[in-house]
């Protein structure tokens, strides 16, 4: 007679319910429990341990960094503007001024000066450089971090496999057709713990709540959603294991000794780089650290000078730190943006979008440092040697991370999609 009773309570509280005859009580149809169809997300490739221990850190320069002001200066040509070149630790390799720390770690750094694509729109190019595919409505291509998390999961690690640090991501893709469980775990700022990872109650009471949840889920075992309960349970186990795990301390940047924090420098990007190292050390497969404002349509020189000052020390220190900890051989570090900038300087002292010839930098993960791949002509307008397409770049990532680039994933409409469609690795980087 609970409904009648409830009705009286409701009348008492709201005064709106008319008394009716009691019809019938609950008689929940008992549903035969079937097997689960949902992806058993926690055990995807569980057998495929991250034996090879490969990891990747992408330093994402949103906006499109100028190649002339970073790793491909043209001091002798009018297109080079006022930017001077500086010597590096590797004789014969010069990079743009304003990157003194990176010049010192040139032994570990390789530059590709002949990147070339056709996408000059931020949105489309960001997607292309994150997925290896142009955006399309019919197939949601997964971002490379999702592919790495899918191909190189680390079940030993309680932390998410794919973490994005910072908020300078535009149209960078997610899990795509691999599913939302391969989306990046977002860390808007490396200075703060990730959202919702701290129980709002004491951990004792949190555990008590989880216990009650488990009991009530068991009580509902013949309800219509019961078949989903096993997955739900695994998800909650995984999420609560994560937040109660000692590995969560990885996110606490305050634990890092002052000397190391100082060595990385003081910008948000610096903290992001340090956090990336902490995460990789803790077993995370793929970390992307973003910084923005490279879209220098005006005031190119003062703006790039400031941006270079933000990235130079942390990027260089990241390589030193990884090397010192023995992680550089197994960690591919990639520095890139969505395109480069025009050789011609516009009337506002800026450079516009230029996908035809730009640069990326790579280190670690088997990449031999101290070398330059490809070249542009003296004006910087055309690739004159060894053009590298996006597919070649992604083949190179796969080669480094020991991912089979020809592996086919199935898209929802049943079309097999290769991890990378065409291209070949830049072998000279590994020789």
């Amino acid at each position: 007679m609970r409904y009648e009773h409830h009705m009286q309570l409701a009348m008492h509280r709201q005064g709106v319910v008319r008394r009716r005859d009691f019809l019938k009580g609950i008689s929940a149809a008992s549903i035969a429990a079937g097997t689960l169809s949902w992806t058993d997300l926690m055990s995807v490739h569980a057998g495929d341990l991250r034996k090879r221990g490969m990891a990747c850190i992408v330093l994402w320069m949103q906006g499109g960094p100028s190649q002339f002001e970073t790793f491909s200066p043209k001091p002798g040509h009018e297109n080079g503007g006022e930017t001077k070149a500086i010597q590096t630790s590797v004789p014969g390799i010069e990079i743009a001024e304003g990157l003194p720390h990176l010049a010192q770690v040139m032994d570990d750094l390789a530059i590709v000066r002949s990147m070339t694509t056709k996408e000059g729109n931020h949105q489309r190019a960001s997607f292309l450089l994150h997925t290896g595919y142009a955006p399309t409505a019919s197939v949601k291509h997964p971002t490379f971090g999702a592919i790495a998390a899918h191909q190189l999961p680390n079940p030993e690690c309680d932390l998410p496999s794919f973490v994005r640090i910072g908020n300078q991501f535009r149209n960078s893709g997610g899990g795509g057709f691999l599913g939302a469980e391969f989306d990046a775990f977002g860390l808007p700022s490396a200075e703060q713990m990730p959202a919702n990872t701290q129980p709002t109650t004491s951990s004792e009471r949190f555990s008590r709540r989880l216990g009650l949840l488990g009991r009530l889920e068991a009580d509902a075992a013949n309800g219509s959603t019961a078949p989903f309960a096993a997955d739900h349970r695994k998800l909650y186990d995984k999420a609560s294991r994560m937040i109660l795990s000692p590995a969560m301390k990885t996110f606490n940047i305050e634990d890092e000794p002052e000397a190391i924090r100082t060595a990385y420098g003081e910008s948000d990007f610096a903290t992001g780089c340090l956090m990336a190292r902490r995460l990789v050390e803790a077993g995370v497969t793929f970390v992307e650290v973003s910084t923005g404002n490279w879209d220098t349509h005006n005031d190119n020189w003062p703006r790039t000078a400031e941006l270079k000052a933000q990235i130079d020390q942390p990027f260089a220190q990241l390589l030193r730190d990884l090397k010192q900890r023995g992680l550089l051989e197994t960690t591919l570090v990639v520095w890139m943006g969505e395109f480069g900038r025009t050789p011609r300087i516009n009337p506002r002292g800026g450079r516009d979008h230029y996908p035809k010839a730009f640069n990326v930098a790579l280190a670690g993960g088997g990449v031999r440092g101290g070398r330059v791949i490809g070249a542009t002509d003296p004006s910087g307008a055309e690739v004159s040697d060894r053009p590298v397409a996006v597919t070649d770049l992604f083949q190179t990532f796969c080669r480094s991370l020991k991912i089979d680039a020809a592996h086919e994933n199935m898209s929802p409409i049943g079309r097999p999609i290769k991890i990378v469609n065409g291209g070949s690795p830049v072998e000279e980087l590994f020789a």
Partner: protein
Amino acid sequence: MMRYKCSAILRSAGWLVLGLAISSSAAITRSAALAGPLGAVEAARRVDRLLSKELPQDSLTASNSPAPPDLKSADVGEPQVDDETYLRRVTFDLVGELPSPEEVTQFVLDSSPNKRKQLVDRLLADEKFGENWGRYWRDAVLYRRSDDRALIASQSVEQYLKDEFNRGAHWDEIAREFIAAKGKLNEAGATALIASQWGEVPETAAEVSRIFLGVQIQCAQCHDHPTDRWKREQFHELAAFFARIAVRPVIDNGQRKGFELTSSDMRFKDRTPAQQAKIKANLKGKKNARLEHFMPDLQDPTAEGKLMEPVLFLTGQKMEPGASDDERRATLANWIASPENPWFAKAFVNRVWGELVGVGFYEPIDDLGPDRPCGAPKTLDFLARQFAEHDFDVKWLYRTIVGTQVYGAPSRPRSPNGDNVPTTACVQPLRADQLFNALTMVLEVEETQIGAAPDKTKGYRGPRTARALFQQVFGFDPSTPRDELAATIPQALLMMNQPGLNRALSAEGPTGRRPGTMLARLLEETENDEDVVVDLYLRCFAREPKPNELKTCLDYVREVGNRTEAFEDVLWSLVNSTEFLYR
């Protein structure tokens, strides 16, 4: 589903002879045999009867359990869910919300034999109906965006569709507006579909075909379709209808004021010298490229390609080249949104059936072939023809589907073997907006009170509200087959630990200007613990607790020894349980 494949192909071929214009007189003769538009009750009865013939073993589990009194007039005896389950299901489906505890009680105690029908009438008249399905279509269109700037149209498309559905707009009217849309993205919501592809011509054609025809013709963009019979040329002929669309910044007083979807059919010679110079520089002499669509030459990507004339691949209907953008899109819109075009009705019926019943006649719900297996082709034909007879009256279709016995059948788990049929009423995960609505109702809070800490940065989607946070974490592309969706860690973390949500779940009394929480009020007003548990179950699941559930909760309250804390934990557990996330 394989065993239906042959009949599906025959059926589809019957509808349509490809490469030839469809015989419109044939389509009319066939529908004439149906004796005109049927009312929703009669149509639902016919659907059940057709399904019981097409899928006898699957749909009718040979049960003799009596139907509820209000459904005794039905022809077939599909077991029906109890009132609570029906109420929760249909309320989520039509208005995107949970029924309140009082509504559950009233509905169960209501002895009117027509109460389910009355309920459906009330829900369809509620403005939340338009809001719920406006949000659904916002996601269906914008999840496929290739440019995040399309999110500028997020709020305008939601508002536009909300108003349209609520005023009783018919699906052909809406389709015509989407296909022929123009105007500012943040004002003219119908621009969202084309804006989602940022005016890219082939992508726009592909999306129009997928959304309104259920045909995935984009696979034919680079080669003849591998599994369907579409030819590469047919894809590019469709694209030719969109050759003159453009998404451009709106410049007002030298300032950029958003973006607009517009036409770009001004002739080269009519442009200013400055524009001509820019076009020349951009196009390197191919001055027609802005006005007509060219099928790229696969052997020579730098060549101009082949000039395409606008032709609708389904019917062979053709336009003269040189037509203006307005003419092209209005013509295509009329050809697509036509009762003579069976794909148009079928695509919508299939999608709505798939969302309401849980399994479409075709799966995925936006891939109708023609060479795809159909779960129950005669039933789909009947419903699609009736929908066309009703001039694509959206509410008629909803009323009919939720009135079927199949809709009211107990949910079953989705089979992992892909052999689900359109009579399998399946459990569906709630969409982000449904879940968020449910939380605000359960906790009796305003949207802003669940809160994410307000974020001052403003994305394309608009201010980052608590609803936006839920959309971001729980949102999914509604065209994705449900068995390919998986729950994520951030979802679990949000439900478990989000500080604003936890405050709303607590029994915190009034402090300062903040009123006390729902639980605080409930505990104060209700002395008996059992009554509290019943209220919480009604509130969260729209049903009473079963005896074992009641016992678990009461035992827990006793074990903890602190009534307030214990009930906070109970409410937390209910909201975090599987049942809360599905319908």
